[in-house]
């Protein structure tokens, strides 16, 4: 018979892709990036006869990453996977964390944050999540406005208070800003001012320089932390750079995993520190 038969439709692969895409909706709240881009998804397996059983393992840059953030990401991952129409049994486990046992038990029992950490937790995590949404918004706003200043150094900084969404170049920075705005419920119309706080309040001209300056320090914090965490993940898990999508914001040479393969510097010690 001539041509080879077309490969059979492989629901495992399609579902795997679908599951991975769903995990791409889960953000590290602090770094403002999807856990898939950060390389935090260690494995994703479809098991069971109907391939509707999913097991996902997450990993983080250190054993001591904040447990509240760790819990947020792991429980968000379980939520997005459970929401897939074909998903049957979803297991999400966090590996190599000082609270792995506690968090994994809590996830398995769907105990929620308060149920997982019991006496140590007094409030749920929505407020914390909101704090980082505000920071992500401030950083995205600063990137856009600083971009305008870089292009036109003669522009008075006070004038930035009057810039509207419609005046921004329609690039990825503007796109990122609009997503952050919608997460906070801020207006998306072309005439909406860009420089606003998390409630949508703008600034009079004399307050604009300081507002921009504060947003800048927020952006520097997030960018720096994101690259530090990415680097630490690569140090802790050799080869994990293959799972990371490069982050352009605030990038430096050292962020390119091909530039300094730090994990190769101490090959003798690597075996003693890994499990």
């Amino acid at each position, binding site marked *: 018979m001539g041509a080879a038969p077309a490969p059979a439709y492989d629901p495992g692969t399609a579902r795997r892709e679908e599951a991975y895409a769903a995990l791409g909706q889960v953000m590290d709240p602090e770094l403002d990036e999807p856990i898939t881009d950060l390389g935090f998804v260690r494995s994703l397996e479809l098991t069971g006869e109907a391939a509707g059983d999913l097991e996902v393992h997450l990993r983080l840059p*250190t054993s001591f990453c904040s447990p509240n953030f760790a819990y947020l990401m792991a429980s968000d991952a379980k939520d997005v996977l459970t929401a897939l129409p074909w998903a049957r049994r979803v297991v999400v486990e966090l590996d190599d964390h000082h609270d792995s046992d506690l968090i994994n038990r809590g996830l398995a029992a769907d105990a929620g944050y308060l149920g997982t950490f019991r006496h140590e937790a007094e409030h749920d995590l929505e407020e914390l999540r909101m704090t980082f949404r505000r920071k992500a918004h401030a950083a995205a706003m600063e990137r856009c406005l600083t971009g305008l200043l870089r292009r036109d150094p003669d522009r008075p900084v006070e004038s930035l208070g009057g810039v509207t969404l419609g005046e921004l170049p329609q690039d990825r920075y503007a796109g990122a800003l609009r997503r952050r705005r919608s997460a906070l419920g801020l207006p998306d119309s072309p005439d909406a001012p860009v420089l606003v706080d998390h409630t949508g309040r703008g600034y009079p001209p004399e307050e604009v320089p300081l507002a921009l300056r504060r947003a800048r*320090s927020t952006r520097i914090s997030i960018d720096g932390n994101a690259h530090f965490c990415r*680097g630490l993940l690569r140090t802790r898990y050799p080869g994990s750079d293959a799972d990371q999508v490069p982050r352009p914001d605030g990038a430096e040479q050292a962020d390119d995993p091909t530039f300094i393969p730090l994990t190769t510097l101490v090959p003798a010690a690597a075996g003693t520190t890994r499990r």
Partner: protein
Amino acid sequence: MYTKDDESYFIVDAHIALWDARPENQRTIHGKQFIDCFYDYHRNLSPESEVWSYEEYLYQGGERLMKDLFEDGYVDHAIFQPAYLGEFYNTGFGQTEEASALARAHPDKLTYNHNFDPRNGEVGLEQLRRDAERFDLKGVKLYTAEWHGDSRGWKLDDPWAYRYFEACQELGIKNIHIHKGPTIRPLDRDSFDVADVDHVATDFTELNFVVEHVGLPRLEDFCWIATQEPNVHGGLAVAMPFIHTRPRYFAQIIGELLYWIGEDRIQFSSDYALWTPKWLIERFVDFQIPEDMTEYAPLTLAQKKKILGLNAARMYDLDVPAELRLPEAEQDAGEPDVGPRQPEAADLARA
């Protein structure tokens, strides 16, 4: 002292440790995880030539410490900032006896700061009084994420902490170093939150609060608080080695600090034995803000001298040789106590 291009610098390493993380001292798996985390920081941020083996990293001892800091490392004076971590290590992480004995043997080179935990209540308060006398304490290092029985953290503005700060004022323990970096707990509160520093800095104006790791990864929160509180300082532990792998990020950190809190309240530290001071000092003296970062003014020689040692020397009343001091006119930048330092550099367009 470090000399380069006919300029000499008085060096104070304001945050060092003599730790023991060897397996025999690890009380739980968390003891191993903790030192592994440090070792990953070390491997991730160090130049290739400065990377130690894992075994070297677990414990250094006094002799090696003296060599790394004072023979090889240009340091004139260093200050122990020990973390106790008694739930992770049998005899604690920082070695109280060994470090304090070393400081007694070299009083001109070393200052021993100790720690306290307000969850020890009255007993701990009495201990603090004894420790203050025994070690002649000028400062303490506080680790609010310390585990303690069922509790996995405390806040600087807890009522018992206030009792301890009152004791500090009375005992002349003026310099309160606070670890605000990668932490563990408290849980449902943001573990890196520096808001509690704001409260105590306002209520204890006689004390200096040195926020170690300049609040990273919450630099902006730290800067905002420090801008408003003249007795809040920034320690560069863990921020320093970014000078190698991420020099532009380092430039931004220094640029932001100079803008928000000014040149008189920033302290160099290697965070030994996370890193050794030699290469950090060499690189900092050579360091300059990249030219395209027009939002920041270039670093001046006086700023470098203050950060590398003169600021901490003043806080700890250290004797700085006359030739290593700054001329009178440059000693005080004449900056305001509160508010941003460089309002004229508040935006890109005007720089």
